[in-house]
């Protein structure tokens, strides 16, 4: 049986953009064997017992051989602030790997990734996990100060960047680039993770070009294991749990 509740050792924990941190962790042997891109880890907040809820954070990169995972996280409140204070050698209590993750069919060769803000982070693992595909990545950031990992994406993908305020590259949302990108070359599949303001455009593009589209959803989460039923999203008329039935859902079924 896979031991999902385990201890991870902090190897590095460092800021990489405004309010965004990157943490590398050593995980117990074999835990990565069952990992899929788009899955997440559920972090217990170190320190006092005041913070009872774990924080779900998607995996941003991994190294199968060294048994390492990397997360990228946005400083939101007291909990993530405490995570940011973790130092090399600290032991963190995690549940990993959780959720369903992104899955590419063998014939889906031409892949379009679209991410916004901290939602860009999990998309990197798709390219790591499925290296034998052609990728384009549309990455939207708030402004110049919030940009991270564009070079990482450029190693494998043809990358286009937007900023909300136009302080770097094109002004606007990443979704503004979709129509032109689809006209140029229609992908076999689209994978998305970003703010809810993306969803309207994503849905209309998906319908217009009939391209299977999968989105990673976010919801305030409790246990992370399917027991408490708090992290639900409306999927085809049902309340599905983001932690076990998601976080990745087929956009056609997502009710916004």
């Amino acid at each position, binding site marked *: 049986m896979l031991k999902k509740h385990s201890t991870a050792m902090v190897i590095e924990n460092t800021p990489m953009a405004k309010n965004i941190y990157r943490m590398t962790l050593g995980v117990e042997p074999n835990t990565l064997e069952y990992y899929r891109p788009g899955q997440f880890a559920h972090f217990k907040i170190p320190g006092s017992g005041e913070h*009872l809820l774990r924080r779900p954070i998607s995996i941003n990169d991994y190294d199968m051989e060294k048994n390492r995972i990397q997360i990228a996280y946005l400083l939101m409140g007291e909990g993530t602030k405490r995570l940011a204070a973790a130092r090399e050698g600290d032991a963190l209590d995690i549940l990993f790997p959780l959720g369903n993750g992104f899955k590419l069919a063998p014939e889906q060769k031409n892949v379009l990734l679209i991410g916004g803000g901290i939602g860009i982070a999990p998309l990197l693992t798709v390219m790591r996990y499925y290296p034998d595909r052609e990728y384009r990545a549309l990455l939207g950031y708030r402004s110049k100060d919030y940009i991270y990992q564009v070079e990482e994406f450029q190693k494998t993908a043809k990358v286009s960047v937007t900023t909300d305020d136009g302080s770097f590259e094109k002004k606007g949302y990443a979704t503004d680039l979709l129509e032109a990108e689809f006209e140029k070359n229609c992908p076999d599949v689209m994978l998305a993770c970003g703010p809810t303001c993306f969803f309207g455009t994503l849905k209309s593009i998906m319908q217009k070009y009939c391209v299977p589209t999968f989105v990673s959803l976010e919801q*305030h*989460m409790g*246990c992370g294991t399917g027991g*408490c*039923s708090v992290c*639900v999203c409306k999927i085809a008329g049902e309340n599905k749990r983001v932690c076990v039935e998601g976080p990745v859902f087929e956009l056609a079924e997502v009710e916004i």
Partner: protein
Amino acid sequence: MTDMSVKIAGVEFKNPVIAASGTFAFGEEYRLYMDLSRLGGIALKALTREKRLGNPPVRIAETASGILNSVGLQNPGVDGFIRDYWSRISKTDTVKIANIAGSTVDEYIYVTQRLNEIGLDMYEVNVSCPNVKEGGVNFGTDAKLLGDVVAQVKKAANKPIIVKLTPNVTRIADMARAAEDAGADALSLINTITGMAVNARTRKPVLANVTGGLSGPAVKPVALRMVWEAYKAVKIPVIGMGGIMTGLDAAEFMIAGASAVMAGTATISSPDALVRIIEELEQYCGEQNMGKVSELTGTLITSSPECR
């Protein structure tokens, strides 16, 4: 070695630690994290007559040493449970308790009668859900309504019934007595305390339902006090809960009068917490040289000798 078994309303539990309803789904999810037969029992997620979608998200908020939730009884309905879920847990060697909820007395009776057809060990009558508009906590805050629903479920049930009480009342002892008088075989308390969380920046409530139920260590002192008051008010066994995170917490509830305990927020915080709580309680009993864990119940020492 302490004998960890307890008996409640004729039902034998291998230890006094039970998964609290609504925090453990129908059990299956937790096979990944523990051997379910280690548990004293499992109180399954609340069941209503029809399937319910529950409240819209956001359904959870973190507060200081506490959690607010407003799930609102999402469940597949009793028929859906029997068809799709029961067989996955029915053979697990632990006490299985169904949690029965409804908007009307008729609904409670229907759910009870359907459950009579399968092999559960006990029923927990949920008259204390703070997160639904009709029924739920309304039954638990009015002694007359409470007595009525308990009497009707008792009449319909072919298994012992536990009545789960709400702390959102002025005098818990009155509710405990009303449930006992109506035929309850045991009580469980406390359900969550109604509360709310506000985001000062957006000036919006954190929960979509505005209010929710508070649980976790933040409520433990209130829960201990109410368990103690209920214990003194009735002769039937009391199952204590409210912020139990450790074996020592469990021991405290038993000392205050509980025959067994339930823990839920502990599971939400860490999926295998119940097993740790059982081990810690066992260790405590060993340190106290206790023959039976059941000897702990109601051993609160309230009169201390004079200081000399």
